């Protein structure tokens, strides 16, 4: 199936990424996939060392042979509004073992679920990129080139 995500209206911003995806699944199902760490780690392909709870910090290890040496990514849960809203802060794609990311600003990732005729709509916003050093943005690009697309294909094959 082709991607059905849509960009929000184009703006000049370099600070945020805005995605909207329509899912043919009940809100409660989608809520569980996003807010339950055991489910989240399955589709996100990141092993998470704890449960999600507001204010709690967990660590996520990317499940990809290319990043075996990478340190776990610190993920701090910001806010949980059951069935509707889930947000966390992290260092986006902080996968280089030689870099101390803890001193860098984080980005905020927000999932919002709304009802739709055939299921629900999930809006994903990641913001705060303007605070991240440019060199890091490029590093994020380098580390992920090819890797994430490959993972998506793996999962599609796995669930199909």
């Amino acid at each position, binding site marked *: *199936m082709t*991607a*059905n*995500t849509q*960009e929000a209206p184009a703006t*000049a911003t*370099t600070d945020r*990424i805005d*995605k909207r*995806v329509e*899912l*043919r*699944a009940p809100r409660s*199902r*989608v809520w569980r*996939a*996003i807010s339950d760490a055991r*489910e989240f780690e*399955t*589709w*996100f*392909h990141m092993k998470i060392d704890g449960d999600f709870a507001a204010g709690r910090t967990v660590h996520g290890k990317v499940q990809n042979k290319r990043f075996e040496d990478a340190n776990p990514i610190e993920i701090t849960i910001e806010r949980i509004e059951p069935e509707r809203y889930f947000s966390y802060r992290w260092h*986006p*794609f902080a996968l280089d073992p030689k870099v101390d990311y803890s001193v860098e600003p984080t980005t905020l990732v927000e999932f919002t679920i709304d009802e739709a005729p055939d299921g629900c709509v*999930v809006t*994903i916003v*990641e913001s705060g*990129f*303007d605070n991240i050093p*440019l*060199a890091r*943005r*490029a590093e*994020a*690009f*380098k580390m*992920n*080139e090819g890797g*994430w*697309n490959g*993972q*998506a294909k793996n*999962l*599609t094959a796995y*669930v*199909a």
Partner: protein
Amino acid sequence: MSRSRGNLALKVSEAVPVFAALADPTRLTLIGRLSVEGPLSITHLSEGTGVTRQAITRHLTSLGDAGLVRDSRRGRERVWELDLKRLEKARYFLDQISAQWDDAAERLRAFVEEE
């Protein structure tokens, strides 16, 4: 791999001044007008902005230093136009992370719809 890293390092160093130059409302407006209206003279660019020609010239020079615009003489006038390649590079980094979210959203779909 090491070769692609070298290429990337070059791109990063080029992109730093690009983002810095774009982080200003007047300069973003100038970029917007040049992209919609095409090459324009300083006179045209300062019309109706409430900003002096001198200030506009300074902003255009900053944008020029970042490689976002270039100027040329047309008869007695100096006109400014966009240098699109640099703008595309500036967008490139965010586009990569954006693509990763597309993939993640697609995996979420597969996960919740395949039950």
